[in-house]
């Protein structure tokens, strides 16, 4: 078997890089005009896309941990999405440099009395040097693990044999605890600390649940874009069906975690916790919350119950795009109300979102061309091509 490469979309790397430059450039212009607002937009976009990359990395680790064979055909796409973790190392710089204007606990003097006491109480954890050290740890861990998994997989394209599969499985499984801890603390540092009243012990899982759903969505969209590639000719309705089942499962999982977080805070009704949801269930933010319940959970969930929809790549991809957009709204709804008590959409929200996303896309498209389009060296590829669940 020769190495089947990706054939189409030759200009994608350049085009995506152009969009990234334009988006990030315009966001920089926005920063010159309104530094605080542009940084908030950038930080939100960064957290949204970085979570998606880590979600893909955890998906890859979970595939290895379960020794899943059906997904070998689509694994290269997952690896490439995961490997965009590397891009988020330099992309974190604006957040690190602008941290004082993003995180309220870095400027306790600007806070009202009660919040200032909270910020001072949490200073041993929430201080700039330790924050930056932790961020570096998360980002380096994600970059290294995703890069190794991808590199061994690509090496296997040439070297063949089962030894590299075994090595990927060991790292994939072994890294899962590390990924779980880092994404949890990233959620606390990057999202939860924005609102000093946000005290939710389930929040790490919440960020993971949304990010994992977004990662599955991105993988479905990438496969949809690649569906006419000769290398992926073996992609059958059964593969789409299983990806659709994952999308359904994690739509339900996100709702389960979101509800658990809401109900525990609502029912306890403690002054230290409940302001988080008071700000997010009243006024215009409250409308956004209801939209999320309806359109991030209820409608997609009932649509995804349909077997025919899951087996139709076009409809599944449309729903995946929808869930990705809804996850963005969820991240926005979690992060923005802390600094903006009523929604204040800004054009940098869009430029930052496109800029960071396009940078990751350019990197992924470039990576995808550096190996075969499917893991041809993996001995389990044959099983994946024969995949036919009952």
């Amino acid at each position, binding site marked *: 078997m020769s190495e089947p490469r990706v054939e189409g979309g030759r200009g994608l790397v350049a085009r995506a890089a152009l969009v990234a430059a334009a988006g990030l450039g315009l966001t920089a212009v926005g920063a010159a005009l309104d530094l605080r607002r542009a940084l908030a937009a950038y930080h939100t976009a960064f957290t949204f896309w970085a979570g998606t990359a880590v979600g893909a990395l955890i998906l890859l680790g979970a595939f290895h941990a379960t020794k899943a064979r059906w997904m070998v055909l689509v694994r290269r796409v997952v690896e490439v999405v995961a490997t965009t973790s590397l891009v988020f190392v330099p992309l974190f710089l604006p957040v690190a440099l602008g941290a004082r204007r993003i995180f309220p606990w870095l400027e306790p003097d600007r806070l009202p009395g009660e919040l200032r006491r909270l910020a001072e109480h949490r200073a041993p954890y929430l201080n700039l040097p330790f924050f930056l050290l932790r961020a570096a740890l998360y980002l380096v861990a994600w970059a290294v693990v995703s890069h190794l998994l991808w590199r061994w997989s690509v090496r296997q394209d040439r070297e063949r044999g089962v030894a590299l599969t075994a090595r990927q499985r060991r790292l994939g499984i072994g890294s899962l605890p590390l990924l779980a801890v880092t994404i949890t603390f990233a959620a606390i540092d990057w999202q939860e600390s924005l609102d000093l009243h946000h005290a939710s012990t389930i929040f790490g899982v919440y960020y993971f649940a949304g990010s994992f759903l977004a990662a599955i969505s991105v993988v479905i969209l990438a496969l949809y874009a690649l569906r006419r590639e000769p290398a992926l000719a073996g992609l059958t309705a059964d593969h789409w069906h299983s990806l659709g089942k994952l999308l359904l499962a994690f739509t339900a999982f996100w709702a389960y975690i979101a*509800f658990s977080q*809401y*109900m525990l805070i*609502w*029912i306890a*009704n403690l002054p230290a916790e409940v302001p988080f949801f008071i700000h997010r269930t009243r006024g215009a933010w409250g409308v956004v919350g209801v939209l999320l319940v309806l359109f991030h959970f209820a409608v997609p969930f009932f649509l995804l119950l349909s077997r025919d929809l899951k087996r139709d790549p076009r409809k599944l991809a449309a729903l995946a795009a929808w869930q990705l957009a809804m996850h963005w709204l969820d991240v926005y709804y979690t992060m923005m109300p802390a600094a903006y008590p009523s929604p204040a959409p800004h054009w940098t929200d869009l430029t930052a979102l496109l800029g960071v996303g396009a940078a990751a896309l350019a990197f992924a498209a470039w990576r995808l061309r550096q190996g075969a389009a499917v893991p041809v060296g993996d001995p389990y590829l044959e099983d994946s091509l024969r995949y*036919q669940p*009952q």
Partner: protein
Amino acid sequence: MASYVLGEFADDAAICAAARSLREAGVAALDAHSPVPIHGIDEALALPRSPVPLIALVGVLLGGSGGYLMMWWMNAVDYVIDVGGRPAHAAPAFVPITFETTVLTAAVFIVGGLFALAGFPRLHHPVFEVEAFRTASVDGLWLSAEVEPGRAEAVAGELRRLGARQVSRVDEEEEP
């Protein structure tokens, strides 16, 4: 009164091909019996889609609405208790129980519906008269056809031609 013609096949492909071929020859009442799932047998037998999902949906609607209404009636109508100023009709607090009753009722409907559709409890079937049919729960893939007695020999011959390892015929006896 009907006759059953049974054929045992060695592998998935053979039994699927035989089922397809008999169906095209106009034998309508076909069934497959095997200890393991047979890939492609649903299409080969042209089985309709299972009505179990619809039965489950009925269970979901009944269990969900029943659970919620039960709590609403108990907490907000029949015996109102003020718990720390929370509303008597506290929707978020009702959700976990609603979820549980939904799942429970759906599961009962699925299992019950499956039993009903499979004809349980049915203690005996004429094909059990064939001793060799016991391999259907060990390693044999069996195709059975319910035909009029006059046609049984023709179908048996067809099964042999299609590669059955062994073929048996059972005639249903008249009810006494």
